[in-house]
């Protein structure tokens, strides 16, 4: 299904103004605007870093000018579902590192926790503020042909992309200025202020005006642009591991031109295992020796908390609906994709027997790596997947092949450019602290080659602005209204 155009070929109500403008402009003007947008991206220096041929290359951010549109009332439901999901996931993480009620009550299998590569023994007994571990999450959503929006995966470690939500909007505002004047499109700019508020709330007790820092692995990281962007928007310091030092007092300091200065809250964009060589990988040069000591002593706030990733692997995913019911006593407001777990012999047998029309995924890879799509893989690839599943069954899950929805996209064709449907997903960002905040919309990623389902920018995907539009009558309402007017 298409997000902007109905099965009858008519624009959906929330997208009507956009689609009629696109028609009126014609493809030539649209291409002009696309070029202006690309020039904006170039001069604003909006980039991402790709690692290829042994080199890190700073590339211009790929962007398609035609936005994805979501009606406000639909978004309100999705947003409530995301906030609910993250509340439950955070209670789950806090439980795992403390009382493990969920295991004692037989809701979550103890074996799974034992086998988890993302459970950090070093975090047992820690109680972060508000019981929240995954403060910032980027949840991937897709819409299947049935029209239902499903959660595809939870990213609770160091999800990236939110900077592009804000930058895409800045670019689109210039490209389609006339539509912003006529429609109520929810602004996305508030995110960084909400993030700043959240980080401030994580400061050690009694600290007023805490010093915030964003901890980056450095300029060669694929998301360096974003680390820098967030630090700019919050007025935080952008630090690398070597800029920080933990003193004998278990407090974190940064090396300034005036000497050492205390840091109170760190938004870390480094994976757990590289965070502190005293506790995790001893060979890590990206981290800060002693950081875990400082965190456990309550002298520094860390977002996301170390160990939060225990709840975002693709195996735990299969339990999330149960966890929501268990912790909140509520039914999930947003759907999960039915997921088969290779750890159970009967489900494994089913996966292997039906591998040709399943997607199989390794539990702990990100960026789309390692995924095998049954109906697109060669038989050699399928054989290799079966072998991998049998060798390490806890690490694999399978889901039905979803047909990602599409959005009209400007692509090369017909000797120039044409507007054709391309597959998209959606990554909204959820902040959880004392309360919750969900970005209006999120990052829409688009697979640019015809028929492709791979949306990752590291693998040739593009992006779109996402509009949550208010004040639009649904189709049936506007029809009945016009009928009434006609009969009057």
């Amino acid at each position, binding site marked *: 299904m298409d997000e902007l155009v109905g099965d009858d070929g008519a624009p959906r109500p929330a997208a009507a103004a956009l689609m009629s403008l696109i028609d009126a402009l014609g493809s030539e003007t649209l291409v002009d605007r696309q070029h202006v947008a690309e020039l904006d991206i170039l001069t604003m220096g909006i980039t991402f870093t790709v690692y290829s041929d042994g080199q890190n290359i700073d590339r211009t951010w790929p962007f398609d000018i035609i936005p994805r549109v979501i009606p406000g009332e639909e978004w309100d439901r999705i947003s409530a579902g995301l906030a609910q999901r993250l509340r439950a996931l955070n209670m789950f993480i806090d439980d795992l590192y403390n009382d493990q009620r969920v295991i004692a009550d037989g809701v979550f299998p103890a074996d799974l926790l034992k086998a988890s590569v993302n459970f950090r023994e070093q975090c047992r007994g820690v109680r972060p503020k508000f019981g929240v571990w995954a403060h910032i999450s980027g949840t991937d959503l897709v819409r299947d042909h049935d029209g239902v929006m499903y959660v595809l995966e939870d990213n609770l470690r160091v999800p990236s992309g939110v900077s592009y939500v804000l930058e895409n909007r800045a670019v689109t505002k210039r490209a389609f200025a006339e539509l912003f004047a006529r429609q109520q499109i929810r602004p996305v700019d508030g995110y960084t202020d909400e993030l700043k508020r959240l980080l401030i709330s994580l400061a050690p007790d009694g600290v007023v005006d805490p010093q915030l820092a*964003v901890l980056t692995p450095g300029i060669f990281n694929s998301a360096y642009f974003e680390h820098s962007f967030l630090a700019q928007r919050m007025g935080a*310091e952008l630090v690398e591991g070597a800029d920080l030092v933990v003193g004998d007092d278990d407090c974190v300091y940064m090396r300034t031109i005036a000497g050492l200065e205390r840091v109170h809250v760190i938004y870390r964009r480094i994976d757990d295992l590289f965070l502190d060589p005293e506790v995790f990988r001893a060979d890590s040069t990206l981290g800060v020796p002693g950081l875990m000591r400082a965190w456990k002593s309550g002298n520094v706030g860390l977002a996301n908390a170390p160990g939060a990733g225990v709840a975002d692997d693709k195996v735990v995913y299969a339990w999330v609906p149960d966890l929501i019911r268990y912790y909140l006593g509520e039914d999930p407001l947003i759907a999960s994709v039915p997921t088969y777990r290779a750890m159970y012999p009967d489900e494994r047998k089913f996966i292997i027997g039906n591998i040709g029309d399943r997607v199989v995924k390794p539990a702990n890879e990100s960026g789309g790596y390692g995924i095998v799509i049954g109906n697109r893989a060669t038989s050699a690839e399928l054989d290799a997947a079966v072998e991998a599943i049998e060798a390490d069954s806890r690490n694999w899950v399978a889901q039905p092949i979803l047909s990602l929805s599409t959005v009209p996209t400007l692509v090369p064709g017909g000797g120039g450019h044409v507007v054709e449907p391309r597959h998209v997903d959606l990554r909204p960002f959820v902040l959880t602290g004392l309360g919750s905040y969900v970005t209006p919309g999120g990052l829409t990623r688009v697979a640019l080659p015809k028929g492709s389902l791979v949306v990752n920018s590291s693998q040739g995907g593009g992006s779109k602005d996402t509009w949550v539009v208010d004040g639009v009558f649904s189709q049936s309402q506007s029809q009945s209204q016009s009928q009434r007017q006609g009969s009057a």
Partner: protein
Amino acid sequence: MGLLARVADRLYWAARYVERAEDTARIIREHTNMIIDLPTSVPVNWEPLLAIMGTREAFDARYERADEMSIVRFLVADRENHGSILMCVEQAREDFRTCREVVPREVWQAVNDLYLYVASHHLDGVARASRSRFLERVVGESLRTAGFFGSTMSRDEAHEFIRLGRALERADMTTRVIDVRAGSLMVPVGEEADPHDDVQWMSVLRSLSALQMYHRATRRPVEGPATLRFLLMDDAFPRAVSCCLTDVMESLQRLPHPEVVLLACQQTRRLLAAVGLEDLDGDGLHELVDRLQVAIGSIHDQVMATYVRTPADH
């Protein structure tokens, strides 16, 4: 809020690179203009440009003939020359890109514009027909960054490090121009000056964009000693060494524990104050400039030692 030592280092160098690109553009532009003005009977020489930039050896290793095209290409567009305009701008852009959290967005975008222009047009800077326009654009774009810097950036520690880098680079460049260009023009007492010397002295001033301000400040025609006094000791012209030194000291006053660096500045100031220019011939001037450059170099060393290398010890 304290400035990270690593970031201070990057900002300082970023500013030096932008300034170096701008100054190099001025110098090449003026040299081209001067050679057009000289009568055809006077042999033209582009090699002083290499001497000013201190890159003679690197040039000789890569080019066979020291002719106009080779030298200009080397100084403008050669990726193997770290001091070429292209590489300075690229380095400055990379430094600013990795300090965006302390620099206003407008400053970054102006630096990025400078980079995008130079990256796509650097070959225009080589051919004589398009050279002036390219070099003027480099100067203009780099002043655009300075404009945004001055009008949108808080005068915080990050600001002072940019100012510091710019002022030291300027002082350094002015002494280099004096060393190479003026040294060969100084006439030993009793000898008669070459009739083309006034054109050359004017050119020295022009390559630092100083001619008009020289006339306002000195009320004299263009001549050697007055030009040197102006470029070394004027307290109001922004590219004069003394004025750059004032900028450096003002910046330092706004930074933590500047005592040792200020001491190095005062030594440089004393050096300037003790000079009797009328007595200097070519060799004496060369010696003076050498001492000045060492003094400026020691200010740089003290900045690094105080703020970048061992800040945790304070």
